[in-house]
Every structure is written in structure tokens, then in C-alpha cells.
């Protein structure tokens, strides 16, 4: 509960005190939030049971529950780590200028940073479809103004397009919520999972909700809003949007498919989602190869990397088709691989966006053709970018490698070899677009490059530390993680607590 309350209280405090205080409050909330997330994860790790919290002591179906299982604990820790890094990174870009009492952009940035964080934690911990709707809207309203923070016409248009996509998506989701309530009279996920039957109303509701959430996750073909929105935002905001905000709606789809209707998982529909994911990988990577600007390249690569996440659906739901002991193990591998892809992409992409931001700030532009010799001047930043890129490509020993290797192993072992072809091709394409940036960056130039503004080594250090986190995720063993299994098949004892 505290995990949501701390950032939310931060928003209110920052609004009330204003000006210079907002930054301090945000950083204090960030460190407190990191401790809380770690404490929750440690608790779940030790007890091996999900934590449930009933707001105001009212138990579902009347009350609202918050529930922390393995997935939510891992996502909360990832969020806290990335937000802390973004906070440290943004201190320079969004500090209030000397002499001024308050400035618009920093004020908005710090409050919205905490608002988005509160929304994300609510998404990870919500155990009720309507709570999740509210969390989703909180996330949208925090994320949209971040896109248009600098107020240029393109970014305003990008923010408006993002908002329209997001609103249609959440209206679809809300309609699904209405249908679920109408059919079963409860919205608590754990209760619903015991009630759902294979009937048309469930199919319609799940289809509506999935379609709406796909628009918010920017899965191909509903990805049109993402590149201009993520590329136009300031670097710290793009890192937040690309690394975490799109993951919020993805986790919601996972909650609906694996937690709400676990008994009715439909392989045909799961294959279709994965096919969209495969199209996203190919399409996003090819477009990333064609971009001329660094930030747009990274934004298109986000579309491609989101595609990998959707392989989770057919691969982790296979035992319904082949019910035997060995497939159970492989779905566990796919599940861990998918979640690891979620985490490693979050960390790597945040590092890459911030590295791109530093490069753009130093040079005054982010055209890939004009990057010649930047590695001489900003070695740490380019190194961090390269480490993040390694994770996207899936080179060992990075988090991306372990995630993709697990998905690949599961795909082959479950006899769904066609997905392994796409996973491998996606890795090659990712290598193509990362090297397109690194080759000019590492090239020797005759004339020494002059920087428009010097870049402090502290900010470079934050980016590098985050990239090294992405690398360290590669040390995760190649087997189903016990933490992630916590609360996967919802035990009825938890609801009774």
C-alpha cells in the first residue's frame, strides 16, 4: 500500500510546496520508494506467498484488494531503480534556474514523475479490474503531458495523438470491465478466475480489453503514436515512457490472460497475439534501420522489443494443449524469459534514451550521420549505449540474452519453432541498427569534435550504472525463477486471508 501512497503523497506535497522543493521531494520519495519495493520483494522471496492487502479492512467482493505476487514485486523493484536513475539524471536538466522561485517545466516534470510512478505501482499491485482501470488512467494522464513538456508544435501533436489512442484504449477496457461485472458481479481478479466460464460474454470482454490495451502498449499495428511521442519528449521523460509506461498496459494484458481467465486460455488467440508481436519485431526493426535521428531509432526499437513480450502468450500457456510434466517446466522457462525481457528492456532502454539525450545535448543535434568520433569525447556515454544495445541484440552476457535464450528454448521445446525464427531474425536486425549508431560513433575523425555544452561525468555515470544493471541481469540463471512463480496460479488460500 505504501508503495502507491509514497509517490502519490509526493505529488500532493510537491504541488503544495512548489518550486525548488519539488525536486527534493521527488528524490526523497524515490529513495523511500526503492526501499519499500525492495522490502516487498524480500518478503515475497522469503515467504514464497503473495501478500494481499484489503483496503480499509473490507474483503472482496465488496472491498478492494491490493495484491503483490512475484511479477508485481519484480516490476516494482525495476520501476524504483529506473525512476531513481531518471531522477538523478534529470537533476541538471530540470533544476529551477538561479534566482527564479519556480519554473514551469521542472515543476511539471517532478510532479508527473511521481504521478506516473504512483500509477505504475497501482498497476503492479492492483487486484481488481476497476482499480487497474483507474491506475491505467493515472498513468496516461501522467505520461501525456511529459511528451509535450517543451511545448513545440510537433510534440503537442504527438501528445494529442497519444492521448486519443490511450483514451480509446481505456474506453474499450472499461467496456470490458462493465461486461465482466454484468456477467459475474465481481471484478476481483482472484474471484473472477474461479467464476469465468467459456461463454460469449467473456470472449467479447477479453477481446475488447486486449484490443484497448494493445493500443496503449503500442503493439503493431496500433503503434503509430509511439515514435513521435517518445522521440519528441525530453530524454529523461522518453526513458520513463519507453522503459516503464508501455509496460504497464502490457502487464495488464498478462493479468487478464493468465490471472483472470487462466482456465480458458485460447491457443489460437495467443498465437494471433504472438503473430502481431512477430510483425512488430520485423516492422519496428526495419524502420529503426531507416531512421536518421538517434532518438527515433531508439523509439522504433522499442516497438520491436515490445513484440518479443507477446511471445509470452503462446509459449507460457502451452500446457493446455500438451498436459505433461515436461511442458509445465518449459512454460515456466517462457514465463521467466518473458518477464526478464520486460525488466531488461526497461533498464537497457532507459539507459539508451538517456545516453542519446546526453549525446544530443552535447552536440546540439542527434542525427546519426553527424555522430562521427563522439566516442572520443563522451566515452562513458557511448559505452553505456553499446551495453544497452547488447541487451537489445541479445548478446551474452546481458539480460536481453538470457531473456531471448529462454524464449527461444521454450519455443523449440514446445514445438513452436516458427517463433524461434523471428526471435533470431529480430536479434540480427537489432544488431544492424545498434551498429549503425556505434560505427560512426567509434570512427576516428581528423578534426577533434567540439561540444556545444560540457556533460558532467556524474550524469554519464548514472547512465552507465543503469546500462551495467542491464548487463548484470545476464547473470540470472537459465531456469524458471522461483520468485516469479509466486502467486502465478492463484491459490484460494490467499483470498481467504
Amino acid at each position, binding site marked *: 500500500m505504501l508503495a502507491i501512497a509514497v509517490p502519490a503523497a509526493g505529488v500532493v506535497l510537491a504541488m503544495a510546496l512548489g518550486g525548488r522543493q519539488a525536486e527534493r521531494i521527488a528524490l526523497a520519495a524515490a529513495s523511500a520508494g526503492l526501499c519499500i519495493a525492495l522490502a516487498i520483494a524480500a518478503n515475497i522471496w522469503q515467504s514464497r506467498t503473495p501478500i494481499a492487502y484489503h483496503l480499509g479492512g473490507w474483503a472482496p467482493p465488496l472491498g478492494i484488494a491490493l495484491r503483490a505476487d512475484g511479477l508485481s514485486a519484480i516490476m516494482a523493484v525495476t520501476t524504483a531503480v529506473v525512476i531513481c536513475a531518471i531522477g538523478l539524471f534529470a537533476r541538471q536538466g530540470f533544476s529551477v534556474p538561479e534566482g527564479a522561485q519556480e519554473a514551469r517545466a521542472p515543476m511539471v516534470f517532478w510532479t508527473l514523475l511521481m504521478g506516473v510512478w504512483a500509477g505504475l505501482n497501482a498497476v503492479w499491485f492492483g487486484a481488481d479490474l476497476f482499480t487497474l482501470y483507474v491506475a491505467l488512467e493515472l498513468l496516461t494522464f501522467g505520461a501525456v503531458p511529459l511528451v509535450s513538456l517543451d511545448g*513545440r508544435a510537433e510534440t503537442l501533436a504527438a501528445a494529442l495523438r497519444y492521448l486519443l489512442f490511450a483514451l*480509446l484504449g481505456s*474506453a474499450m477496457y472499461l467496456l470490458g470491465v462493465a461486461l465482466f461485472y454484468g456477467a459475474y458481479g465481481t471484478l476481483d481478479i482472484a474471484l473472477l478466475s474461479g467464476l469465468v466460464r467459456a461463454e460469449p460474454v467473456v470472449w467479447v470482454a477479453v477481446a475488447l480489453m486486449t484490443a484497448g490495451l494493445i493500443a496503449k502498449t503500442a503493439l503493431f499495428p496500433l503503434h503509430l503514436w509511439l515514435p*513521435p511521442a517518445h522521440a519528441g519528449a525530453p530524454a529523461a521523460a522518453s526513458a520513463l515512457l519507453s522503459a516503464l509506461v508501455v509496460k504497464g498496459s502490457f502487464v495488464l494484458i498478462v493479468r487478464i490472460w493468465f490471472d483472470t481467465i487462466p482456465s480458458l486460455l485460447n491457443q489460437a488467440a495467443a498465437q494471433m497475439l504472438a503473430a502481431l508481436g512477430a510483425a512488430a519485431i520485423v516492422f519496428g526493426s526495419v524502420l529503426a534501420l531507416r531512421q536518421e535521428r538517434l532518438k527515433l531509432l531508439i523509439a522504433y526499437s522499442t516497438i520491436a522489443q515490445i513484440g518479443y513480450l507477446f511471445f509470452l502468450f503462446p509459449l507460457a500457456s502451452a500446457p493446455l494443449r500438451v498436459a505433461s510434466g515436461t511442458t509445465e517446466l518449459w512454460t515456466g522457462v517462457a514465463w521467466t524469459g518473458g518477464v526478464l525481457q520486460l525488466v531488461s528492456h526497461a533498464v537497457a532502454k532507459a539507459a539508451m534514451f538517456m545516453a542519446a539525450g546526453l549525446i544530443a545535448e552535447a552536440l546540439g543535434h542527434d542525427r546519426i550521420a553527424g555522430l562521427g568520433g563522439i566516442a572520443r569525447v563522451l566515452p562513458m556515454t557511448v559505452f553505456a549505449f553499446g551495453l544497452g544495445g547488447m541487451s537489445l541484440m541479445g548478446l551474452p552476457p546481458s539480460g536481453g540474452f538470457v531473456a531471448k535464450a529462454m524464449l527461444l528454448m521454450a519455443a523449440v521445446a514446445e514445438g513452436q519453432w516458427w517463433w524461434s525464427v523471428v526471435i533470431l531474425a529480430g536479434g540480427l536486425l537489432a544488431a544492424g541498427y545498434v551498429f549503425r549508431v556505434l560505427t560512426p560513433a567509434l570512427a576516428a575523425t581528423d578534426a577533434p569534435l567540439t561540444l556545444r555544452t560540457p556533460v558532467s561525468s556524474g550524469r554519464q555515470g548514472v547512465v552507465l550504472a543503469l546500462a551495467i544493471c542491464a548487463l548484470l541481469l545476464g547473470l540470472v540463471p537459465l531456469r524458471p525463477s522461483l520468485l516469479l512463480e509466486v502467486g502465478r496460479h492463484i491459490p484460494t488460500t490467499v483470498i481467504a486471508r
Partner: protein
Amino acid sequence: MNAATLYGLCSAALVGLGLFGAIVHPQPLRKILAFNLLGGGVFLQFGVIARRGAAAGMGGDPVPQAMVITGIVVAFSATALAVTLLLRLYQVSGSATLSIETQSSSESDGGGR
């Protein structure tokens, strides 16, 4: 056909009209209006469910009504935010369309779906 079915069909029609409008119209203001139509349909759906799920002797189930209020507040603030963004876009660029594209993202236009 009883009242609940009639209202349910109305809500389905509203949702369909809103979705159609939001996809087909290129102008952002029309899209915002279409979103509100769609939202109206969804809220009506909640109303129907509240009426249908009412216990004997009661006017309606209160839980969907509580949800509708939250939904309306969210839709209202979303509309306000969208209109503000649109007004600001008009002030900055002098036109209220989504066709302003940075050169490199022009292939991702698609009429601002």
C-alpha cells in the same frame, strides 16, 4: 423487449458510432467528440448492468453506479486535457490538425488514427 435490453442495444450503438467516428474522422476535435460518444455508450452499459443486477425491491445495484461516476470524472478530465492540448496546438502552430509531422516520422502518419 424490456427496458434493459433496449438500453443495452442503444449503448452498443453508441459505442459503435463513437468508435467509427474516432477512427474515420481526421480532425482531432471530432475525434474527441467521438470519444465522448463512445464513453456515453460505455456509461449507459454500466447503467443497464446496475438496473439488471438490482436485488428485488431496489432501484439498482450501487456498485456500477459508483464506477460510472469515476468513469465520468476520468472522461471529463481526459476531454479537458485533450481540448487544452488542441487549443495550445492551435495557438502554437495555427492549425488544429494532427498532420504536422517531423520530416523523419512522416511515414508513420496514417492520418493520425
